[in-house]
């Protein structure tokens, strides 16, 4: 295991250390996906790359949006926009648990003083048609990560199996830094000439988005966007594999998947606006899931998805 690490002093230092650590473990450090998503799992580097036989190792920060969790920046740890740190390695290495524990040491959690536990928690994403077995990881009784061995994604069995780690960065950082309210957490070095707190960066946006998510977002427009994204996704995938212009085989899995992500986020917004009834809810989730399945079907027909001509 790694040398004992000094304690980090800011939110961003924790992110930087996680990136450095997983980089040292051989992961490609990717950047956030440039679309609104509900969780780091939606990044194609996880959802699509967990499919097919090709090995893969990536780590990245993903800004995530959960409109219903907005609390106008008042709640000590609930946010409508937050960060997840995501690691995906395929096939899952035999020492993934030890690697994970190493990452906790890297951000200054002293294994000699804390009580780390792997508590059963099976993961399921009804919108992605995905599930896996694993744990939530507890540090002194607090959930700090989700640890999952993917078994199925988009309705496809995962072969080989990917190991996925998800860190809820704000909560983890608050714990490591000993902060009680997320807005009080130092974002950059507190000794810096211009020291910024998490609140300095995000309090105002939390307010703005909370208001928009709950009360102002135009539901008719959103409903229309949902339908459009759904139609576009299907249309893209209905195109023949061979591109008439270049004569190459180009299955457009990623552009179609973008539409699936879009539909999923719009559904979350509609949910926050309270215009989706309990029974409709299941139907919407089912619609997004069928898009995810179509995209997964398409991805395994691509080279990255293990397709060999």
């Amino acid at each position: 295991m790694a040398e004992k690490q000094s304690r980090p002093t800011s939110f961003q230092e924790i992110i930087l250390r996680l990136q450095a650590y997983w980089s040292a473990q051989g992961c490609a450090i990717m950047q956030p996906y440039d679309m609104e998503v509900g969780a780091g799992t939606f990044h194609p580097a996880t959802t699509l790359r967990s499919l097919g036989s090709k090995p893969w190792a990536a780590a990245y920060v993903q800004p995530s949006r959960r409109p219903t969790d907005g609390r106008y920046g008042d709640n000590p740890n609930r946010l409508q926009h937050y960060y997840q740190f995501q690691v995906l390695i395929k096939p899952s290495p035999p020492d993934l648990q030890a690697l994970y524990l190493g990452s906790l040491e890297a951000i200054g959690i002293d294994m000699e003083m804390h009580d780390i536990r792997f508590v059963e928690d099976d993961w399921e994403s009804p919108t992605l048609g995905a599930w896996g077995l694993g744990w939530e990881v507890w540090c002194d009784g607090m959930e700090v990560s989700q640890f999952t061995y993917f078994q199925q994604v988009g309705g496809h069995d995962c072969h080989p199996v990917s190991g996925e780690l998800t860190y809820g960065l704000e909560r983890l950082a608050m714990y490591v830094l000993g902060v009680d309210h997320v807005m009080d957490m130092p974002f950059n070095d507190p000794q810096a000439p211009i020291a910024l707190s998490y609140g300095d960066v995000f309090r105002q946006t939390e307010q703005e988005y909370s208001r928009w998510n709950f009360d102002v977002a135009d539901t008719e427009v959103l409903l229309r966007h949902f339908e459009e994204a759904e139609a576009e996704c299907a249309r893209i995938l209905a195109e023949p594999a061979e591109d008439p212009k270049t004569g190459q085989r180009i299955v457009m899995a990623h552009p179609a998947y973008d539409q699936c992500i879009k539909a999923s986020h719009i559904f979350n917004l509609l949910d926050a606006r309270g215009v989706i009834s309990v029974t409709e809810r299941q139907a919407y989730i089912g619609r997004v899931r069928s898009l995810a399945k179509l995209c997964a079907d398409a991805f395994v027909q691509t080279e990255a998805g293990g397709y060999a001509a």
Partner: protein
Amino acid sequence: MPNLLIELFSEEIPARMQAQAAETLRKNVTDGLVEAGLTYAGAKAFSTPRRLTLAVEGLLGESPDIREERKGPKVGAPEKAIEGFLRGAGVSREALEERETPKGAVYFATIEKTGRPAEEIVAEVLEAVIRGFPWPKSMRWGAGSLRWVRPLHSILCLLDDESGARTVPLTIDGIEAGDSTEGHRFMSKGRFSVASFEDYEARLKRAHVLLDPEERADHIWQEATNRAFARGLEVVEDKGLLREVAGLVEWPVVLMGEIDEEFLELPPEVLQTSMKEHQKFFSVKSPKTGRIERFVTVANRETADNGATILAGNQKVLSARLADAKFFWENDLRVAKAGMEDWVDGLSSVTFHAKLGSQAERVTRIAALAREIAPHVGADPDKAEEAARIAKADLRSEMVGEFPELQGAMGRYYALEAGRDADVADACRDHWKPLGQDDSVPSAPVSVAVALADKIDTLTGFWAIDEKPTGSKDPYALRRAALGVIRLVLGNGIRVELVQQLLFGRCFDHLFSIKELHILNDELNAAMVTVQSRKKPQPESFSDWRNVIEEVQNSEGQIEAFESRIAAVNRAYQKARIIATNLLAFFHDRLKVHLKGEGIRYDVIDACLAMEGSDDLALLVKRAEALSDFLKTDDGENLTQGFKRANNILTQAEEKDGVEYSFGADIKFAETDAEKALFAALDAADARIKPAMEAEEFAEAMRAMASLRAPVDAFFEAVQINAESDVLRRNRLNLLSRIRSVCSGVADLSRLEG
């Protein structure tokens, strides 16, 4: 004789699966060994979060030689049959022997199996057990195809005897069995080899792993109670939580912490549930006030600061959780103090079941039924109805939304806040009861009325829409509901005719809705007024309605317009009758299971079920208990034999003669003393039995029956039934008939076995 040690070392096994998995490992491995000819002296299995371990003592070193002869097809049988036989027996064509038998020449094969060393058998059995392990949920990992509950890392498989220990050669999906294992994840470093089970257990302990889950649980409980006791407090017992926590740690370290002052005023159920569900903490309460004041958490390691950092972290998480709970509680209190109307109204937007309507509709039915039941259980009808109306309101509260298991408990608090009477509030809490075999049965009349109404509405509802439990599937817990009704009725000595007074009306209501019937009735009345210029009385009961309908059907004129609706009512009547009877049979089945547990035989219950009034469960059980006691006496057993003898002779004679001998025997045709004595005894018994039965004094009635034993025995001893004289024969048969009728008044003894 060698001992066998197996350890399957994996990533963390869910706590809830560990005990069953250890037991499965023990059973499947030992079954496989025995099947292959390896018997053993003893076997014990253990589990920790990361390992399943099996220790088998006194195993045979090798399986015995087996020589077995097998008979095959006839010589000249089709080639396919012979080939099949060869395959099955595992021998070659040349090895077959032809032998003459009375049925011609037949092939025989001699199968010889030489004994095999334990190593070989153990390796085969263990591989089969691992590959076929019945985990509730299993997974693959990496690039492999093996399934296990979480990634399997190593296999320890060791045979040891006086000559030393040897590893069993075995490789599964690239995992090679060895003689080594690992200790605690954080408090031990590296792998170590072991030489025997004792060595394994001792070395594990040195490496900070307590192998035996019971030892871990005992240690946790001991430490927790000691710590609580030192502060004059006590730990709230929770065996399920103890088992679970023992499955989350290999090296339990018990820590006790404080709950922030601001949360101490939360109801104890809330504190306990929040701490248990989210944090797996034990609650620690003051024995004097019952107030929960502290918590116990169990860490998986020792630390240099004696757990101070761990405890501080846990305490912080708890405060955040309890802050949520407090937020829910305070929001809920506002609604409760305002009378809970928001919640009651909100129930109309919650679907109970697509075919049985919303929770609000259900509540309306339960309230009406609770009012109806109230007089039977000595409850105030107004209060029963009031309690039923608000009993489900807490389902809409934020607290119950977060912690569904607090339903009822919160209902009571909120009802009190809403200013309702204590017995109404108690009914909100207790109407869910009894929830299981071990749960207590409410006895407060209002609670009993609502509890019964709730369960009967559920049962009749699901029966009416034909969603009964089948086999192991009982998604709406209807068996539990039926047993709940039985225990409520018996526990409180409630006398009610289930079908007539409760089930039938409810079944009808589910099929047709009494509301619709009311509307129909009003319309019919209006029509009748114009037809006959007179107002019909408002019908009060089902039979009144039936009369109204019949009268209307018989009358002429405008009634035709109602014909199809009246026909629908009639259909509902017929169907409700069938469903209610069917549901009663379900109650009887549950009752049999329940009484079996109390030591009453099935046939005894059947004998009582055959009597009238079997839908009065309290009466039925009273009768069954008396009969069961009676049959345990000598007199009871013998009288039953006498009765059966009389009944058999009589039945045969009646079949043969085509008449029923119930005309009444006459003492003047009695010839022998034994016969005369039986007449006298029957008269005497009759005189005692009738009043006893009227007073439902079954034991007394049976004692009176028991007095017949000697005269009946003596009668059969001395008297020939089939006398030469036809008159004498008829008279004796009629006398047997009296035995039958006297005995049958108590129970149908012909249904008793043996």
